[in-house]
């Protein structure tokens, strides 16, 4: 599913204040895994997430997603791949404020060329799966934080991506809602078989995943299997 070999990334390459953020990352993720990446601020975990999400490029090494080498892609090609293979969940939800829940969920399909009726029907289906059927016509500011994140999860799911990348998905939520969101993600992982990669600095979130990768100074410090994932907040 994901194969990363000796991946290096430096910001401001060639200038005196060059910043080497990813120093030879090697990493494999199999389909259907539920893993987390932890690390202190500045450890390079967000950069790694951006590279995996094809939002950012890298300098040397190899990144293969689903058998496709992701390197030096044009913006258009990158957008296509992102649209089909990757779903995103963000800390601050990033819903589009003037679109209702259903339209937000349907947006990835809009860029995939799915006709309106079909994508709205599908969006409703996903909203109902996440228990938000009654809130389909609500605008984001009429929803609670937990509801917003559930809309975001539905949006990440709708294009049936190979992998969902979650950047601090519980960062803006209280413990109860955090628990709810992680439960949903685990549920989605089990039922849909979609790979979940969560970047977090919360130990509680990491504990809930099957595998935890620690990043330190742009290198993988440890990569541990978690035999007993528990969701406790």
């Amino acid at each position, binding site marked *: 599913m994901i194969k990363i070999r000796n991946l290096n990334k430096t910001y401001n390459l060639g200038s005196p204040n060059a910043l080497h953020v990813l120093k030879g990352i090697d990493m494999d993720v199999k389909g259907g895994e539920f893993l987390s990446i932890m690390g202190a601020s500045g450890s390079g975990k967000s950069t790694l997430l951006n590279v995996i999400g094809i939002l950012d490029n890298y300098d040397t090494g190899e990144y293969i997603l689903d058998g496709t080498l992701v390197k030096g892609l044009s913006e258009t090609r990158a957008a296509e791949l992102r649209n089909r293979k990757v779903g995103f969940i963000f800390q601050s939800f990033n819903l589009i404020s003037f679109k209702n829940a259903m339209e937000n969920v349907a947006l990835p399909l809009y860029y995939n*060329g799915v006709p309106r009726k079909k994508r709205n029907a599908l969006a409703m289906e996903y909203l109902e799966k996440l228990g938000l059927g009654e809130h389909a016509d609500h605008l984001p500011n009429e929803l609670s934080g937990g509801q917003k994140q559930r809309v975001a999860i539905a949006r990440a799911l709708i294009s049936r991506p190979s992998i969902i990348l979650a950047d601090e998905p519980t960062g803006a939520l209280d413990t109860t809602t955090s628990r709810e969101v992680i439960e949903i993600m685990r549920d989605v992982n089990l039922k849909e078989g979609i790979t979940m990669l969560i970047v977090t600095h919360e130990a509680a979130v990491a504990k809930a995943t099957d595998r935890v990768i620690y990043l330190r100074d742009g290198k993988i410090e440890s990569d541990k299997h978690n035999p007993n994932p528990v969701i406790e907040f």
Partner: protein
Amino acid sequence: MKVFDTDSLQEIWATITRNKFRSVATGFGVFWGLFMLIVLLAIGNKLTQSILAQVDGFATNAVFIWTERTSEPYKGYRKGRWFSFENSDIALLKQRAQTVDIISPVLMGRGGDKNVVHGMKSGSWGFHGIYPNFYDINTVNQDSGRLINEIDIAQKRKVCVIGNVIYETLFGPGEVADGKFIRINGIYFQVVGVISPHSNASIFGPVDEAIHLPFSTQQMLFERGDSFYFFGFTAKPGHSATEVEEEAKTILRAAHDIAPTDTKAIGGVNIEHQFKIFNMLFTGVNVLMWLVGLGALLSGIIGISNIMLVTVRERMREIGVRRALGAKPWNIIVQIMSESFLLTAIAGMLGFLCGVAVSLGIDRINFNGDGPVVIIHEPIVSFGLAMTAMLVLVLSGVAAGLLPAWRALKIKAIDAIRDE
């Protein structure tokens, strides 16, 4: 991929209507710009047409020359000599003058107190002896009958054509003048036609008070021999009226033993010169109207562009999210460009329509002082102008969107959605 489908239109419409006041305020700039452009051009058009209507029917390349006294002694003649043109001059000019098209000699007949009489009615008017080609220089409207023709000239017929004011003075309402006889300076002439002015421009006084006789008849009855004092010309295509004036004068000076340097012996008036001044005025008015109109439109476009830039900046995160969700650069360009384009198009169309409506009102306004209102028969906003305005509108819509779209393209998804 399709640029416009219902989906993208709804998407665009949603973003435009999201901030209604801003959209309306922005659109107003373009609305006003196009409105002003159309109204100003209509005013310019109307002004031009009104002035042109005054001189319509008058040959714009016409020249008139007449005999004066010589101002230089030449070939034994003293200066201050009187002279006249002769019928042989007509043939001479036909043969020699390269630039002259129509050659139309004119005779003047002086009127007297109640010199024109029909039954109990009479009036005082001058009269002119003309050739049929006079009507090619000064177009007239034929109210009834016919004009002076070649047979009248050849047979020296005692016929006349009268202006409508003369008709109304000498004849009762509804009375048929054609075929009747009127007495002019003691000689009876048969009326063959009634004319009225085609426009306000005329030479030898107003057309509605003109009496036209065949040139040959008048020469025979009222003048001495074959002399006359007045010529009308028009220029051949490709030649200016000034050339005609110079050439005709040169030939006539030589024929009448006048010094080649004597500029005062033959007087002349050149209509073309007046028209050139008119035309420069029209061009000036038009250029000014376009400048002001386009200026107003340009500020409207800059307004839209500016607001779109602000909008793009405000929507950085939204655009970033769209990119993360799979929007291609092309999608973003289309979105931003379409927004500015739609805004421009709607505002511009409204401006255009209001402009046309106001222009129709302008068409009713009289620019001719106390003269008759000149309603332009062709539409005041021509099809060509409408098309030009639409083209300008489309181009401005695209232009307004260019910079904002380029800005939007520079937004990288990771920068926009970063939470720090």
